């Protein structure tokens, strides 16, 4: 393999690409979109769906863009009539067994199959007249995090590759053969008893509505929500998340594909652990202890107070202790979960205002 850039022509436009790139990668790097179902930039290509077939001059057969290396001087047409016809045939074949209940599908509006059919002008599969051959698998929704509807699966294998590569397990794979093929844990095992760790990477990789987040059901359509990028609140890896938010509700969470260090990957906590912020037992008002006796007792109650009253009390008691016993008689522990700006402010308060360096945090837990 050489090291100098490769030059080729795609749709009449001259492009250059890194040596070793496939036609798909080169096209993407140059802002040209080649339709596909099974291709995912973070995963190895499998060439499974045949949607990315393109016409390459001097090649009698159409070539899959995702597995064909780009070579010097190639002249490629991604949307020649031959390529489009082939693509249309492939998508129509998929639609034979794909239920067209987009109305109620959670993936409506962010489904690659829907987009493809629209782009190719397909209204329904021409083969459907001969009787629907949609499958009738039971919905697998016994786990708390995501729903598997194998009737909608297009067998692109993205979930299998995501599980393998992005999550490091091999919980699911193609099972059975021919028209009975499905994606499942090893035959005879339920997902809950498999190696699945419920990271939901497969859900993020699925291009259609076969895998969807359970908590997102009915919460909002993609076009109704905005995407807010943030950092995970759980562990020190600091994964980047895209929150899909409608109003002030998180509909679902995905890993930011180009975010560092996780490059789209998340674990079960980062992807599904967000809803504690909506819990109805949050503390919502300052509370002040009402002592029953002279000493603190578990029977004491708390009463609600205004911020002014609560902070006046805190300030006067801290001032009193500092005046009587000196600044070393106060201490503080900051939060290793909260934002930097909070910890900065707390140590500033202790050092600058209380004149005490008795400030620490739970570095250890």
């Amino acid at each position: 393999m050489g090291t100098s850039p490769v030059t080729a022509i795609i749709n009449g436009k001259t492009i250059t690409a890194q040596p070793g790139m496939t036609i798909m990668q080169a096209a993407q790097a140059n802002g040209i979109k080649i339709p596909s179902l099974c291709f995912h930039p973070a995963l190895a290509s499998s060439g499974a769906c045949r949607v990315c077939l393109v016409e390459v001059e001097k090649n009698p057969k159409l070539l899959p863009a995702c597995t064909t290396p780009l070579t010097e001087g190639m002249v490629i047409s991604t949307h020649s009539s031959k390529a489009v016809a082939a693509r249309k045939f492939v998508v129509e074949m998929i639609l034979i067994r794909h239920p067209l209940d987009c109305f109620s599908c959670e993936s409506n509006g962010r489904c690659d199959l829907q987009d493809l059919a629209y782009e190719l002008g397909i209204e329904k599969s021409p083969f459907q007249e001969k009787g629907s051959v949609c499958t009738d698998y039971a919905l697998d929704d016994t786990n708390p995090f995501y729903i598997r509807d194998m009737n909608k699966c297009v067998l692109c294998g993205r979930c299998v590759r995501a599980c393998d590569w992005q999550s490091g397990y091999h919980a699911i794979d193609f099972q059975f053969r021919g028209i009975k093929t499905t994606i499942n844990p090893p035959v005879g095992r339920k997902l809950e008893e498999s190696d699945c760790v419920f990271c939901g990477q497969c859900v993020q990789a699925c291009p259609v509505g076969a895998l969807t987040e359970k908590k997102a059901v009915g919460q909002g359509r993609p076009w109704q929500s905005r995407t807010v990028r943030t950092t995970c609140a759980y562990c020190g890896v600091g994964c980047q998340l895209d929150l899909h938010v409608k109003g002030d509700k998180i509909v679902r969470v995905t890993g930011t594909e180009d975010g560092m260090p996780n490059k789209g990957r998340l674990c079960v906590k980062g992807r599904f652990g967000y809803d504690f912020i909506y819990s109805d037992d949050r503390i919502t008002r300052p509370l002040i202890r009402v002592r029953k006796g002279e000493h603190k007792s578990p029977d004491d109650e708390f009463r609600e107070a205004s911020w002014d009253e609560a902070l006046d009390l805190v300030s006067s008691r801290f001032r009193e202790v500092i005046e009587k016993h000196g600044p070393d008689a106060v201490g503080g522990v900051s939060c290793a979960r909260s934002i930097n700006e909070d910890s900065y402010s707390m140590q500033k308060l202790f050092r600058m205002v209380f004149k005490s360096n008795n400030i620490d945090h739970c570095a250890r837990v």
Partner: protein
Amino acid sequence: MTNTVGEFAKAKLLFCIGTNMTEAHPVAATYLKNGVNTGTKLIVVDPRRQELADYADIFAQLRVGSDIAFLNGIMNVLIREDLYDKRFVEEHCENFDALAAKVAEYPPERAAEISGVPEQTIIDIARMLGTIKPAMVIYTLGITEHNTGKRNVMSLANLQMLLGNMGVEGGGVNPMRGQNNVQGACDMGAMPNMYCGYQKVDNPELNGKFAKFWGVDSLPDKPGLKIAEIVNGLPSGKVKAFWIFGENLVATEPDIKHVSHCLNSAEFLVVQDIFQNETTPFADVILPSAAWCEDEGTFTNTERRVSRVRKIKEAPGEAKPNWWIFKETAKRFGHDWPSDSGQELWDNEISVLCPAFAGIKFARMDAIGGIQWPCPSEDHPGTPILHKDGKFSRGKGNFQAIDWIPDAEQPDEEYPLVLSTGRRLVHYHSRTQTGRAIGFNERMPEECADISVEDAQALGIADGETIRVKSRRGEVAIKANVSKRMPKGMVWMSFHFRDTNANHLLSGDVKTFDPDTLTPSYKACAVKIEKIEKQVV
């Protein structure tokens, strides 16, 4: 970390010690597995045959608390067989002779005897480290949560300097930080001896710089008390007013009875949090704070990457951003702080006061994502790898001659087993968050105590049976999980659930803590387990 998580996938050799990465840092573990699948060699050192061991080329099942002896044994072989990096040691390190003399006392036979790792395995590990370079050392709290925690960390630094594995891609000493912003809390100076940016309070020049910037005449220049000293200072009245922000100390500090007693003796206690928890009942005042998603700011991850945290909703009721609470308190002492948002605090104060963060600004992070410090100026790309080309911040790397000493609390006749504690995949700490997110309790409704097949058989305990785990501090009744991954003589528990919280058992006695860092021995507590005889009704 001196290096980055992404390097796990490309490194030649990974040396993982005391890290339960697949559960505690799951996404980091995915890169490790990518590496292993594409040719990275893996050495795993852990008392438990945990999931990482399934991927290891060499797995060393060492006894809890024997790390230093084991590491000295490896260095003994490296020096004896001339497998270390002489050039790096000569050019970039000091005190080699002292190290060499110390590790000479730990031939592999002796290291094997102390650690329980076979002599040949120690030799094999040394040879692998000596021939495949560079290697990344990765560790977590399995290394630090001992009374020898700091010395364990220094031993790992010794090893990497000896191998010349510092300052290179695929090398370095890499602690995986536990909580999302532990790195940030340190960076921000929530420590008794340093201001933000690791600037020492007892350095007159820096002390003066902060006093001037904050507009006060003077700042205290004597390092303050560490968390354990503050808590233990409450009963004696040494510390009278205590402010706990966002930490559920009663659940997460060792020896719940002791911590409860201490907090109860506080003259005045403020607890600032988002939920009521085990600690709030001790408070005199409870202040409601804004949670994740309710404020704008930054977190710093284990790779020193400062990334943005964004707001999507208002805090419920009258809950307020934490910085606002501190600012309002300062106001009552006559100080009017200028910054009025996370952005103003970072851009106008933190990044101005700290040379390491000077080039990190909100606008930059919003444009390009997280930036790794040190980042001295706005045209600096950030620093993925520290100590590049052997340049240490204090000139040369200093070898430390370190002796092995046993963990403070040793098993004895009455308490013959060692309890270690940690975190499980689906939960997080005292569960104030995962316990409230749908699905997590369903996946793991209760805690269990992992015990070995041998110990279970000896006591006639069946998998799933409720047993009693007792220590000198207390006892809990808990389900037994009989596991082939556990070595004989060891019990493992988390601290996710209130009644079965392992912190009922651990020692809160500072004599069992690391003498330098006062980190409790979360990983080594003597216990016994008992079958609970069913009462015949």
